[in-house]
């Protein structure tokens, strides 16, 4: 299935045929240099990508365990095994670690770092040293957030709303500085990716011949560069407020807490698109490669990524419909929220249309892509509920919102990220994972996730408020179903971890192109050599012209 003649790779490789057989095969980036120092001071984007992957996976585990303790505590309406103060600290840390240390860096920095230069046919990202600096800034931010645990933890919710965050005794300054520093790591990654996409493309790779994963990472990088500085100044003002108490956000000194919400959500809404856009990129790659079909509506999907990146800057007010924001501003923000819903809908329709007339191979990445379509469609549709003004008055800050953003973040980004991991694992480590274990983990994740969060939609529309430690007895039954579902989801995620780690150790060798894909990263060895390509490939066609596509016009 993998002989050379059938593939018509995106890049013509005739020129490089000669030197491959001549010298012994070059060692891969994993074995080229040995020893810890070779990893800690590497400027190879693939190694930095793997270091980011291990760090973000570790924090995903930590925050995931916090989530399981939360759900187990909520099994009954009364206090089970932790006090109210501890519960508040646990849910705050679950939110803060998931947002700042896992979901924002995970897909762009961990997977993007590995895949972007390979897909562009470049030797490395534009600024390799800056890339390593970005990883070490991320490590400093991680240490600071762990330090908050020691200094009395944080109990303000991941949004640090004033005036509560100004008056509470918990370690708010250390946590805000941690998020402040994590912001810089995100900015550096963003700058790196924008410049790489502009300046490092292989000859012949025009903007319309780039894989859609690159388009998604480019749009994400633009948001990272344009939105994160406002988070930096917001957290800086919050720290100044707590130390010098200048009074901008403090009502006792003439300031206004709603202004803090404006500052915070101006960053945080684009941030949720930083989280989901890379997931879109992965899904575009998975669905095309595993159904052997050219993507349906390439230009529409590429343009909708950039459109989402731009419109995401004008919709932040829908987080504040009931928070004392004026009704006129609420109406304007609600209208713009519906405008941003259209490009997202176009993407989902295009992916389903790509399946038409395909030859779908049910590998694990494809299963995750199909799970993504199910969960993300529900996540997107429930977003329409919360964008409608009058419905949001009823559903704001209830479990409906919790279910919505988990459907979009866990059901969207995390499921796409897992699919991407399975898809590129052979390329990263040169080893195939166990197919049955992969499929089993997809089933467990699907069942567990839907059991956990579908029930929370009903809790929300029954009026159960968010961040409640104890609740009315009438909500108990739904909470118990949700808690059991969270255990199944946890089991599925542990199985994913086991399958991937087992693949590195004892998976059988993977060929350089196990999925017969066309884009550039599959035209080099797996795991790739240190500077990616023996000779810089010249791009001649689109990354989705699979040999199976019937060009004879009779179809």
């Amino acid at each position: 299935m993998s002989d050379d003649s059938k593939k018509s790779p995106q890049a013509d490789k005739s020129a490089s045929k000669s030197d491959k057989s001549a010298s012994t095969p070059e060692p891969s980036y994993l074995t080229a240099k040995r020893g810890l120092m070779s990893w800690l001071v590497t400027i190879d984007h693939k190694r930095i990508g793997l270091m980011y992957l291990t760090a973000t996976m570790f924090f995903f585990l930590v925050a995931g365990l916090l989530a399981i303790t939360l759900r187990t505590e909520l099994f009954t309406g009364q206090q089970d095994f932790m006090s109210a103060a501890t519960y508040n600290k646990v849910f705050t840390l679950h939110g803060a670690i998931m947002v700042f240390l896992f979901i924002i860096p995970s897909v762009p920095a961990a997977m993007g770092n590995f895949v972007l230069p390979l897909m562009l046919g470049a030797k490395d990202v534009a600024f390799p040293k800056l890339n390593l600096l970005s990883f070490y800034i991320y490590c400093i931010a991680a240490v600071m957030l762990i330090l908050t645990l020691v200094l009395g933890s944080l109990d303000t919710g991941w949004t640090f709303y004033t005036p509560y965050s100004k008056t509470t005794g918990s370690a708010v300054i250390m946590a805000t500085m941690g998020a402040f520093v994590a912001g810089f790591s995100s900015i550096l990654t963003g700058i790196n990716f924008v410049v790489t996409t502009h300046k490092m493309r292989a000859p012949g790779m025009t903007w319309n011949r780039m894989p859609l994963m690159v388009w998604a990472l480019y749009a994400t990088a633009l948001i990272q560069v344009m939105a994160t500085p406002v988070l930096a100044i917001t957290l800086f003002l919050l720290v100044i407020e707590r130390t010098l108490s200048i009074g901008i956000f403090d009502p006792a000194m003439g300031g206004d807490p709603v202004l803090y919400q404006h500052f915070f959500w101006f960053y945080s809404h684009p941030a949720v698109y930083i989280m989901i856009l890379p997931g879109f990129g992965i899904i575009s790659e998975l669905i095309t490669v595993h159904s052997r079909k050219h993507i349906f509506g390439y230009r529409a999907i590429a343009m909708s990524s950039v459109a989402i990146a731009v419109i995401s800057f004008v919709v932040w007010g829908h987080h504040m419909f009931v928070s004392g924001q004026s009704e006129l501003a609420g109406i304007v923000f609600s209208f713009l929220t519906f405008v941003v819903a259209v490009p997202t809908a176009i993407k989902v329709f295009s992916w389903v249309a790509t399946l038409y007339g395909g030859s779908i191979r049910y590998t694990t990445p494809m299963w995750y892509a199909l799970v993504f379509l199910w969960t993300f469609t529900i996540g997107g549709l429930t977003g329409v509920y919360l964008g409608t003004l009058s419905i949001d008055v009823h559903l704001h800050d209830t479990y409906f919102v919790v279910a919505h953003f988990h459907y979009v973040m866990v059901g969207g980004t995390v499921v796409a990220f897992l699919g991407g991991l399975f898809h590129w694992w052979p390329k990263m480590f040169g080893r195939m994972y166990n197919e049955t274990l992969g499929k089993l983990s997809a089933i467990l994740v699907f069942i567990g996730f839907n059991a956990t969060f579908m029930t929370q939609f009903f809790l929300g529309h029954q009026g159960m408020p968010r961040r409640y430690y104890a609740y009315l007895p009438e909500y108990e039954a739904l909470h118990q179903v949700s808690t059991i579902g969270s255990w199944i989801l946890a089991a599925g995620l542990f199985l994913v971890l086991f399958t991937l780690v087992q693949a590195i150790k004892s998976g059988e060798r993977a060929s350089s192109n196990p999925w017969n894909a066309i884009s550039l990263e599959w035209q080099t060895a797996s795991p790739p050599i240190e500077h990616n390509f023996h000779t810089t490939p010249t791009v001649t066609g689109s990354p989705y012209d699979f040999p199976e596509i019937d060009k004879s016009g009779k179809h």
Partner: protein
Amino acid sequence: MAHSDSTENTTVYLNGKLVENPHEDHHHVSPVWEFSLVFGALLFLTIMTYVVSFAGLGPASLPVAMFIAFLKGSLVVGFFMHLKYEDRFYSFLFCVTLLFVSIFFTFVLFDMKTTAELNEEAGIEYKRHVEDSAEAAEAAAAREAAKAAGAAPEPAPAAH
């Protein structure tokens, strides 16, 4: 680090036009007199900001001062930073940033103004006076100052 010769001869055509290397940047060196002219203009505009502030234009002084500052800013960005002669993408990037900044400003200030107006319409006393510790200290300091000045210590202002 072997450089492949294959990219030497592959010239890339895009819809009939030879793609000159998209990553090259031509170097522009502007003459000294241009810099001195811009510097002179900047000094003149600084004096203009002074004149505007002392001319007492009242409410119009903020927009005029902002316009002069915008002029100075565009001179610095256009000439000192060579944006005029650079690849069009850099100026596009800078304008997109200014667009996002203006979106941020207009929406927040629009929200604040309409909240104040809507509350006045509904007759709700929008800004509630909040007794705060700093203010209490200030009132205490005012009482001491009055006592030090020998005046009879009038009763402390009734708390809110």
